[in-house]
């Protein structure tokens, strides 16, 4: 009983951590620009696929990971510079379509540059299972959880302690005021896209040894990440992490105890219920509209 419970819990925490990283990416970009970047899942795919192909080409894994994350960040920067920045005053729906267009482009490019097969990576530190309270977990699970915790801590430090982090926060609260005190809001936007892309790529690298990857994995991961960000309350990085973990755990327990066929539906049922009762997410701003 306990073993089963723990097994589901760890499985949920693992996918939840990935959703959290993707959701963080959504939150960062949303904060800086109020854009929902539907290409966020594609960053995850790019991170995993680039690492696979780089290491297949003989690049040592750690270097391949760094290169893949950097390359994905460049794609993120390009998306901001070449598309989002060109569309001042576009409506929310138009911006959504543009990022969806970008996701189609990235997927299309990936199937040409890479291929349409499924690929996997070796686990970073072997496959020897570890027994925790009756559950069997792999070292890769610890990698996912550990890196996610580390990233959250680093981001916490970045936003609260560094000038750049504060500039990004300021821009998200009031772009005009931020501009007036001399913050280069365009640069903030650019950095947010680069950072989000890098986060996505790291998530992609971490998860590939567990779930494998192909050019289409970004679609569902992107949607789950979006769900995480919404569940937490858009624009709250802490909320996105909490939202991701909740989704992951609910999914795992739902699949384990209720129905594995409807695993993917669980996340969306939860989010609908949450939105019906809390229209601004769990940690979102709940202000009254000013008129």
């Amino acid at each position: 009983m306990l073993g089963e419970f723990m097994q589901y819990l760890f499985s949920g925490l693992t996918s939840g951590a990935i959703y959290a990283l993707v959701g963080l990416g959504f939150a960062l970009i949303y904060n800086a620009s109020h854009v929902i970047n539907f290409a966020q899942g594609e960053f995850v795919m790019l991170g995993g696929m680039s690492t696979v192909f780089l290491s297949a080409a003989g690049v040592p894994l750690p270097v391949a990971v760094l290169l893949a994350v950097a390359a994905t960040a460049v794609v993120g920067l390009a998306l901001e510079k070449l598309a989002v920045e060109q569309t001042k005053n576009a409506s929310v729906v138009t911006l959504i379509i543009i990022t969806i267009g970008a996701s189609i482009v990235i997927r299309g490019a990936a199937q040409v540059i890479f291929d349409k097969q499924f690929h996997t990576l070796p686990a970073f530190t072997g496959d020897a299972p570890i027994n925790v309270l009756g559950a069997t977990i792999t070292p890769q699970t610890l990698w996912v959880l550990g890196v996610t915790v580390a990233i959250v801590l680093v981001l916490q430090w970045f936003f609260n302690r560094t000038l750049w982090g504060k500039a990004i926060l300021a821009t998200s609260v009031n772009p005009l005021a931020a501009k007036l005190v001399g913050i280069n809001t365009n640069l903030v936007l650019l950095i947010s896209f680069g950072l989000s892309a890098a986060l996505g790529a790291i998530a992609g690298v971490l998860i590939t040894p567990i779930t494998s990857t192909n050019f289409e994995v970004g679609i569902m991961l992107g949607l789950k990440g979006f769900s995480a960000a919404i569940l937490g309350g858009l624009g709250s990085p802490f909320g996105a992490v909490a939202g991701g973990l909740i989704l992951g755990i609910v999914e795992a327990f739902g699949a384990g105890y209720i129905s594995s066929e409807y695993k993917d539906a669980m996340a969306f049922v939860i989010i609908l219920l949450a939105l019906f009762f809390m229209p601004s997410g769990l940690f979102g701003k709940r202000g009254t509209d000013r008129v």
Partner: protein
Amino acid sequence: MTKAEPTLGGGGVARRRDTGLGARLMRPRTGGLLVLAVVICLLPLFLQNNFQYDVAIKIGFNAIVVVGLNLLIGYAGQISLGHAGFLGLGAYFSAITVTKLGWPPVLSLVLAAAVVGLLAFVVARPVLRLKGHYLAMATLGLGIIISIVLNQEAQLTGGPDGMIVDPFSVFGFTFAKAWQWYWLVGGLLFVAVWLSLNIIDSPVGRALRAVHGSEVAAEVVGVDTTRYKVLVFVVSAVFASVVGSLEAHYIMFLSPNEASFFHSVELVIMVVLGGMASTFGAVVGAAILTALPQFLTFLEDYEHLIFGLILMLVMIFLPKGIVPSLAALLKRGGDR
């Protein structure tokens, strides 16, 4: 306040509405419907084979859905990223009741529309309380849940492999030839556009546009904004359901792809690409987005890449959509 020329807002060119006779013909209601009728009637002269008929029919199907969706997104300003769900439900309701239970297709189509309309009505209230991205998320989730159910309930739907569907027949007459479908769909498209234009040019249409413009302003002059949002959500879902039923019969095959997230997104893209709050824009958007992939197939592996690029470029350079952007361009040219 006696300024002769406006100086604030608008960002430059002040637009005024023409009221002359010539302009009246250019108005969507009369001139537009006329043009649409002419295009539908003359197009068969240019259609040389079944493949081209097939593309034209699919354009018609999509255009009907998008005209309905445009009422919701373009006019009332409420996004839905799950409308393919309603389309899929209508399609499967018809497919299952006609093919497995032997119901008359027209009866199934009408009942499907009623059931889907009812479902839309039930979910509309909690869903449409949400705004912006939260609304996008909720409708997206709804669509995905529907698509997952259609995938999983294989004994009923055939699951991911899909199911064969009986042809469409009305009182013993079976639609079998491409041209028969063409006229059926063409006629329905005309009716859909007519209904849409009727709604827009009425108290209901003004209420919908006011919901988009300023919800609170609409409320304080007596518009029950929730009711109108629910209403337009149901109407657009019914449009989708009817098309879903017909499309299943036309293709005689149905798979859960019909209800997929990507199909929902395609429909929204058609609305935005053609031009939000433009009924004819919706038709143009549907035509372009349905036909474009057919022209791009020669690119093979590069098809998606190029398709995505075209989409991005159009939206970056014509953010208001094709028809409104062109209309503004023509108008500016005319003013000089």
